[in-house]
């Protein structure tokens, strides 16, 4: 049997101290993992973070898949929280369409879908032929009527294709609210300037999906860059599936596409 020599210069007290310190440090390391808090979620739109954002050379598209929307209202809730949207105003909302056998179409959106759809419509007296949910948001028109009518240059299409509102410049005349064919604009009751869905521009510029896309549990909302051939939206737009835009005849050329939209959807 080999007798262990005593450790050099190691008193019992200092040894215990070191062990104790190590234990505390170790347990703290478990409680606060490295980099917690300074945590940045992984990039969801490839190619935004690792190179300088080229404002002039971007093309984004948004696809809403009506055949996958379950009307849970996650998107509406996330949107309201992301921007602290005041009650009674909506940057995005979910409509419920009910089509009867008489071809009559019933549309409702109680509280914009924020509370979800808990009860069926009680006021429809005929047999229902078709029913579905339609999420609505800014169409990001390439030929935006709201931009054309703004008298002070507060609403503009940025070079990367987003229709934005300069809240320092907006005088709150609400001309653009009337001009928008999709009714996505509202006058903010406190700041008295116009606000609208921006496809979460601040998130996109940081490589994250818009809040509504990120929270959608069924993948009914899809967003991505058309410059990236691997992106889901590129693959869908390239493929043979039928995509439509809302109010095509108005010549607004939206960058928001709908999959599975019936002709009644406006």
């Amino acid at each position: 049997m080999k007798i262990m020599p005593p450790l050099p210069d190691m008193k019992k007290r200092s040894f215990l101290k070191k062990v104790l310190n190590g234990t505390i440090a170790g347990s703290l390391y478990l409680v606060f993992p490295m980099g917690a808090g300074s945590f940045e979620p992984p990039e969801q739109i490839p190619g935004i973070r690792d190179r300088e954002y080229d404002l002039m050379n971007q093309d984004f598209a948004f696809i809403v898949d009506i055949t996958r929307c379950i009307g849970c209202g996650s998107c509406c809730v996330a949107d309201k929280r992301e921007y602290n949207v005041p009650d009674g105003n909506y940057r995005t909302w979910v409509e419920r369409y009910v089509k009867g056998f008489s071809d009559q179409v019933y549309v409702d959106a109680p509280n914009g879908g924020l509370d979800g759809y808990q009860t069926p419509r009680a006021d429809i007296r005929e047999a229902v032929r078709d029913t579905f949910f339609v999420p609505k948001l800014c169409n990001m028109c390439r030929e935006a009527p709201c931009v054309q009518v703004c008298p002070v240059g507060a609403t503009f299409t940025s070079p990367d294709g987003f229709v934005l509102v300069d809240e320092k410049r907006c005088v709150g005349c609400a001309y653009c609210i009337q001009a928008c064919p999709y009714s996505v604009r509202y006058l903010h009751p406190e700041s008295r300037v116009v606000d609208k869905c921006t496809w979460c521009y601040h998130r996109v510029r940081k490589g994250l999906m818009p809040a509504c896309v990120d929270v959608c549990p069924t993948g009914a909302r899809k967003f991505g860059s058309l410059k990236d051939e691997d992106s889901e939206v590129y693959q869908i737009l390239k493929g043979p599936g039928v995509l439509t835009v809302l109010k095509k005849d108005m010549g607004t050329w939206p960058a928001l596409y709908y999959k599975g939209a019936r002709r009644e959807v406006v």
Partner: protein
Amino acid sequence: MDLSYKMRLVVLAVGLCILAGSGLLVKGFLVPESFGVYGPYRADAIMEEAALPIRHGTNTSCFSCHAHEANIHQAGLHKTISCEFCHGPYADHVADNKKTGTLPMKTGDEITTLCLRCHNTEIKARPEQVIKTVAMPDHLKDRQVKLSHNCSQCHHVHAPLKHILRADQIMDRAGQANELTEKDI
């Protein structure tokens, strides 16, 4: 005043110069900086919009601390659901590396209401191939439990079939009551 023809021309020219100069000066004050760089709008507004604070993280943000919940959530059928939808936005919970607030937990009937936001059969607009729906209280009667039961008494909210599959396993009736497999936790 009796000015010569040349003098009149000079006065006119000087007057026009002063007018144009003051016009330019006023324009300089009124037109904001960076106006017209890309078009008839303030180019700085783009950067201001991009600089807005992010309030929602992603599920990965939550999982960076909540490893236990992450393991359950990611293995279950509810893996596509956002943590923040039920619990609230990341920004209300964490700021500058520190916990700043406690996000609410749903309890009791709130849980059932939340579940039925998606899983209510009565709402026919839900595509069947996308979501499995139940009718209430038929489902409770069918499973022979009290009608006062909340969903969470049988279903783990983060992985709805976790307990159910485990119970089937223990009772040795796997695949009988539910045609489910291990991956459908």
